[in-house]
């Protein structure tokens, strides 16, 4: 999720091809060996799902069958498929609407929490980021339980006004669910830019006669434009990629999206139309790639947002005066409606047999949902699998991605720049596309079939998807470290690899830890790429929730959701504790 172009430091002095003082031949061979191995492994990992999809999109029959003929027939069929076109249109409408919602809420949060004297900023900051820790799937279920057709508040409202007060099924409802769940993304990028803003620009506006709200609107807000554009495209892409929201709030009323189309055609049908799924996946990939290019183009020329800075920066907040409390009340309302009520609903549902305003929840209290989830070996296994995939997978992936970053940023490897592009490419690959790609790769590749149905293929797919975000965190830390530290290690006789392991990696321990945290949370939440890859024995929480959901077993889904939230909570507090107590990490 970071911009791909990190300025690389001066690497000429790190040259592995020249015999550095004390650099022995053995060290040199090791360096070149590791660099090539890393590059090839990364390339294979990224191409493994990409190649089969591209290949399949051009074949007239499933890619495992012999005598296939190359043609563009899949694309013509796809573009003439009314269902597909409708799905694409739905996806776009949803993405625009969700982006608008996420931008309004995220930017509003950033402005008021970082630039004004709004009360309760501390808890608000916490709430603003909370949805980020939640799986989209859990979030969609939670909203369903409280605002869905038979949702608690929906029925409550119906009891009062006679008709259901709202209908979450459709573009509007989906946009609210997706938009609010992606608000943290916008808040995250805009708040850091709001924190760095030059307060004298706001003072200047005050002094020429602008009131506090006018200053926020005319000065503070436009100054965040680069961050808003960046975040808006991330949300747009994220909404295009989301499977959970259209699955829960679109499909029941026959609204298909790009992702549910891939899901149902690739998985739901008895005989999947391989060619069409391949072509659709390629289109989605191209679409996201184009959006990423647009993003980087739009962000060019952000230089004019940099101004002459005065002496001491006076960190000041805009005083809202009498508006403080009313505005804070609006924020409380927002968090109660979009975060707390859905959370309370899913917890309440997990401990009851029914959740309805017609019946006191205390009369239907039960632990059956948890008994079901923890008593059934397959369900229990999905929890342990999730934890293993998240911890082991994230650990291995962090180390591997660290090596990728070292080769791309800290070596004289010939294709360092190219390696960075390959590493950032998975940003363009939606989870569901990656899942289809790895699934087909296992059918095609000679040794890959014995990965089939194991949790290892899940880890591989998740790791591939996780490269960009972890790479971003690690590379940003790497460019903070002066190359003279490497150079001095080289000059006293350490080879490239020795320098990396003894000097560079220890210095970026905090970044490695945060990369691990990001990957762990990402792996724990991931479900879209897993639906094509799991098999009995390799279920994870997300896939089990999906199958329980399609059986209508809402109580068990709620219990699993709560368990996933609990695991996340424990992990986040542990990570917090580690960073707090250990300054080195």
């Amino acid at each position, binding site marked *: 999720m970071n911009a791909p172009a990190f300025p690389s430091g001066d690497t000429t002095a790190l040259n592995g091809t020249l015999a550095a003082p004390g650099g022995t031949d053995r060290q040199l061979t090791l360096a070149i060996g590791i660099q090539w191995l890393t590059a090839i492994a990364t390339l294979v990992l990224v191409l493994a799902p990409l190649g089969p999809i591209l290949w399949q999109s051009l074949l007239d029959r499933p890619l495992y069958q012999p005598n296939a003929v190359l043609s563009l027939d899949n694309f013509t069929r796809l573009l003439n498929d009314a269902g597909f076109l409708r799905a694409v249109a739905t996806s776009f409408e949803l993405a625009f609407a969700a982006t608008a919602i996420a931008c309004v809420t995220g930017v509003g949060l950033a402005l008021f929490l970082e630039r004004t004297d709004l009360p309760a900023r501390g808890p608000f900051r916490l709430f603003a980021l909370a949805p980020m820790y939640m799986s989209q799937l859990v979030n969609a279920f939670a909203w369903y339980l409280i605002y869905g057709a038979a949702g608690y508040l929906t029925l409550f409202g119906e009891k009062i006004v006679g008709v259901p007060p709202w209908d979450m099924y459709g573009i509007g409802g989906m946009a609210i669910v997706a938009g609010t769940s992606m608000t943290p993304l916008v808040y995250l990028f805009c708040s850091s830019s709001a924190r760095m803003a030059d307060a004298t620009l706001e003072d200047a506006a005050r002094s020429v006669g602008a009131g506090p709200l006018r200053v926020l609107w005319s000065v503070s807000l436009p100054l965040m434009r680069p961050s808003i554009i960046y975040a808006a495209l991330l949300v747009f892409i994220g909404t295009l990629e989301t499977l959970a929201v259209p699955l829960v709030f679109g499909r029941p009323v026959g609204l298909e999206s790009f992702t549910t189309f891939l899901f149902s055609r690739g998985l739901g049908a008895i005989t999947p139309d391989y060619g069409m799924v391949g072509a659709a996946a390629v289109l989605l990939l191209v679409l996201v790639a184009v959006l990423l290019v647009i993003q980087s183009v739009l962000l060019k020329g952000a230089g004019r*947002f940099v101004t002459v800075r*005065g002496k001491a920066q006076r960190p000041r907040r805009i005083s809202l005066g009498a508006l403080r409390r009313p505005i804070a009340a609006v924020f409380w309302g927002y968090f109660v409606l979009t975060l707390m009520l859905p959370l309370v609903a899913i917890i309440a549902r997990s401990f009851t047999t029914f959740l309805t305003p017609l019946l006191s929840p205390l009369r239907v209290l039960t632990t059956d949902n948890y008994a079901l989830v923890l008593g059934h070996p397959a369900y229990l296994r999905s929890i342990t699998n999730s934890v293993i995939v998240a911890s082991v997978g994230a650990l291995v992936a962090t180390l591997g991605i660290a090596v990728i970053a070292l080769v791309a940023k800290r070596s004289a490897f010939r294709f360092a720049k190219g390696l960075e592009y390959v590493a950032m490419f998975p940003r363009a690959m939606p989870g569901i596309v990656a899942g289809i790609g790895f699934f087909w790769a296992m059918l095609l590749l000679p040794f890959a079939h014995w990965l089939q149905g194991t949790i290892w293929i899940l880890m591989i797919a998740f790791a591939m998807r996780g490269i960009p975000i972890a790479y971003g965190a690690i590379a940003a830390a790497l460019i903070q470290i002066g190359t003279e530290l490497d150079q001095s290690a080289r000059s006293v006789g350490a080879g490239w690899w020795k320098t990396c392991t003894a000097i560079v990696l220890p210095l970026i321990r905090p970044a490695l830890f945060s990369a691990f945290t990001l990957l762990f949370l990402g792996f724990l939440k991931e479900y879209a790429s897993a639906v094509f890859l799991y098999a009995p024995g390799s279920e994870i929480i997300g896939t089990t929730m999906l199958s329980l959901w399609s059986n209508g077993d809402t109580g068990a889904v709620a219990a699993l959701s709560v368990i996933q939230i609990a695991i996340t909570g424990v992990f986040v507090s542990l990570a917090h504790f580690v960073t707090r107590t250990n300054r080195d990490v």
Partner: protein
Amino acid sequence: MSDVLIQRLTKRHGEVTVLHGIDLDVPRGEFLTLLGPSGCGKSTTLFALAGLDRPSGGRIAVGGRTFYDGEDGTFVAPEERNLGLVFQSYALWPHMTVAKNLAFPLTLRKVPKAEQRTRIAEALELVDLGDYADRFPHELSGGQQQRVALARTLVFRPSLLLLDEPLSNLDAKLRIKSRALLKSLQRQLGLTTLYVTHDQEEALAMSDRIAVMEKGRIVQIDRPEAIYNRPATRFVADFVGAGNFLPVRASRGGQGEIVEARLDRGEVLRATRTAAKGADTQGFMTVRPQYLRLAPAGSAVAPGSNRLDGVIEERTFLGVRSAYAIRVGDHLVTAESEERYETGPVTLAFRPEDTLLLDH
């Protein structure tokens, strides 16, 4: 008629007191400079006047209207004071063109579009930037940005012009040019102006009056010539470039009178007292280097003139003249002369009118 009236203005940040009761009375049309080192409270005073800093006590009134009164809690919001503030960093809004920057205060005042255009054009013409209306701030040089900031302040015809070190980000040559522009604009528009700077030359060149501030207090307020020639305290003298401070014990006398001062080694000199102090006091004597005349050791001095004997320790060639480091007792004195002297004993002569007696 007083335009700006500041009374007993105080500002505290927790335990630290930044302003210890400032009193200031600025008549209409005056250019008053707050001069002092960083941390003396000059910017705090300016921002309190602008309403961007809330004082802890005292009273501020502009044009008869009370902006702040610590007694009854009056506080007028900055946007309602109609004061023009130019920031040290210029604070041009980077996302707006020059014209938009100037239009913003006018739009807030609901000035019709057509009138906005003429007023913007006028203001830009005033600062010689007529052709730059459609540029963005980052496309301008530092000097141009500074002038846009000035134009943005003048365009809405504020009742008061406040300038916070507006020239400190410019190079030396541009600073002198901008100084002249600023002064002529101020005179032309007749705007009451408060100017904050730590640059004595700027203050001396532009101001009608200078208020020298030290540690949250105004230590002297007077016309530039008086500040320069008759600094009241050693701090002020030091700040306006005087040197050669010699500790003395002075005799009784009023302000402006020539009194007798005794140096620590016993020499008795005659000096002009700059501050009113009745009693026999401890103080400092100062003579600017250019007022010290050098003469061969032991020569006679003009009647009525002060005399000190010393030893030249070092000569620094400055071009037309040379600077001499001369030891007088335990002190090192600097003198400047066009004549050439070698190291060794020398006699210094200086007039009592050029010899100032300062409070410590």
